[in-house]
């Protein structure tokens, strides 16, 4: 058996994205019982400078194609090269991060190859399927997080899936695989480059919620931008990162990159504190796997209490300042 992992660089840096490490660890765990191989594929202007780290997470071999023309996301070119790799390597499984890059390239590759692609998986398991032998069970939420579907690709290969960053736990680095690189020979066609990247505007705050151990999130119930400072103060007192519901983002209390949920980040911190957040299905889709959830809400019937482990019913404008004061006294 063989699993391929799409290697992604974090835009604006020369380093790997976390999801690539997470997928490598997951692929290694999936392949272990079958003594299978984990192969990385990188297509871009230059390999990430820390690519060697992948071998500590269980990677066996990295296949790469570097071309200065591919500094940006030239979808058609990258797709053609990844598809060429898949056709010649014939992996059983191909994993992509469910990032704005992975979700741009993976569907193109699956469409070209005529195989199945399962979106946004939260669990991947290899098991027997009818008379087909071992296949990949791909488990994913759908219907706005109201259902969990198990998707299989019984008759087409490879079985392809995307997985969000932060969903698979970052494994321990324990493998001492030897570093092995292989350069892909590509008959590159300039006509594959169909777009011109006129300007790149870095986003000012690069909040990485998926890496936070504790997240304090504010919702519409915080009331206004001024009051939202309280959320930042509570986060600071706890050494936490600040998150938000979409309503808080839409009202302009905070930047969009702090949004947690179906259309924001998926997080699973050790502690998630939801302040003035009702707990809509879309919000829960991004945080309900947190180890502990504390809900602060004035409405005892707010759905958020349905998934919380700790709760306090009352006005957050009174409760949060008390918490900050007491945390500072204790800490």
């Amino acid at each position, binding site marked *: 058996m063989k699993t391929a992992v799409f290697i992604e660089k974090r835009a604006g840096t020369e380093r790997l994205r976390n999801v690539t490490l997470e997928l490598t660890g997951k692929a290694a765990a999936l392949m272990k019982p079958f003594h299978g191989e984990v192969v990385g594929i990188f297509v871009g202007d230059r390999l990430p400078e820390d690519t060697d780290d992948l071998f500590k997470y269980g990677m066996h071999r990295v296949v790469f194609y570097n071309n200065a023309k591919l500094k940006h996301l030239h979808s058609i070119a990258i797709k053609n090269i990844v598809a060429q790799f898949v056709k010649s390597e014939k992996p059983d499984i191909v994993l992509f991060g469910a990032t704005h890059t992975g979700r741009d390239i993976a569907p193109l590759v699956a469409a070209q190859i005529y195989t199945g692609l399962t979106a946004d998986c939260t669990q991947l398991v290899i098991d027997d399927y009818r008379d087909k032998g071992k296949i990949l069970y791909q488990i994913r*939420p759908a219907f706005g997080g109201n259902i969990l579907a*198990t998707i299989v*690709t019984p008759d087409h290969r490879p079985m392809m899936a995307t997985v969000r960053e932060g969903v698979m736990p970052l494994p321990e680095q324990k493998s001492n695989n030897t570093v092995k690189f292989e350069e892909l020979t590509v008959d590159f066609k300039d006509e594959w480059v169909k777009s011109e990247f006129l300007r790149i505007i870095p986003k000012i705050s690069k909040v990485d919620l998926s890496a936070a151990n504790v997240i304090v999130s504010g919702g519409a119930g915080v009331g206004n931008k001024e009051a939202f400072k309280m959320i930042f103060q509570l986060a600071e007192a706890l050494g936490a990162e600040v998150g938000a519901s979409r309503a808080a983002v839409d009202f302009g209390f905070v930047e969009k990159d702090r949004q947690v949920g179906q259309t924001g980040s998926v997080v699973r911190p*050790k502690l998630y504190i939801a302040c003035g957040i009702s707990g*809509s299905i879309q919000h829960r889709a991004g945080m309900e796997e947190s180890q502990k959830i504390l809900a602060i809400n004035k409405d005892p019937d707010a759905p958020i209490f349905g998934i919380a482990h700790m709760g306090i019913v009352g006005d957050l404008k009174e409760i949060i300042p008390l*918490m900050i004061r007491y945390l500072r006294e204790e800490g």
Partner: protein
Amino acid sequence: MSKIVVLAKQVPDTANIRGNAMKEDGTVNRAALPTVFNPEDLNALETALQIKDRTGREVILLTMGPYKAVEIIKQALYMGADAGYLLTDKKFAGSDTWATSYILAEAIKKIGGVDLVVAGRQAIDGDTAQVGPQVAEKLNFNQVTYVTALNDVTDKAITVERDGEFQTEVIKARLPLLLTVTSAANTPRYPSARNMLRYFKADIKENIPAEKRAEYERNGWVIPTLTFADLKDINEAQIGLKGSPTKVNAIRDIAVQGGDLKMYDPQLDGVKALVRDLMKQYVEVQS
């Protein structure tokens, strides 16, 4: 001038689940959900209409679904689309994103003369965000996903902004092109009263009594349908449940249910107890 096709899907309103859509056991009764125009497809339509406002290009809505999906075609006509096609056939049922995009691409070829396709980023039921790019691949078009703004439009290229997560990318993309548009791109316009008056009778041919055909034709009230038989080159083995590489093996409903919830008093003592519990459990996290 080449035409613009907008891809849109009628979806159950998974965002507003209330009342009888919730079952006793806390799971969602999907059959009881009202249907809506997929939210980001309205942003896609608005993008296309803005291009129409600037260039006069024709905007055509294309939806694959049951007869009920005529509702979103009419909504698009009310907003300013020039025409809408209903792509419907029992043979299409059960299609995954691969088969769906194959059928949509064949329909776009049938419509003909299209060099721009605008899709929503994601449908709120299937939630895959795969159909747009897969249509681009089937048509051999250029693509830009996660579009957050429309800048320039010329005969040869369209300049858009793309949400690249850590950066905004300003991209001049050559036609023929497929865009997938996010909710950040615009605010969809309201239907116009004039268009509502003009199109409220619109329906598919099959529903129009024979004696009224001529009147409907004259007034542009006939919503064209496309079926399997209309898509000459389509390979039946690659559509529907049978032609779809992915299969839904099992579905589990997620119940909204109470875990073991410890409540604290909102007064000072309760808050102190809460903070103490937090500190006990998270000292190691904090340090």
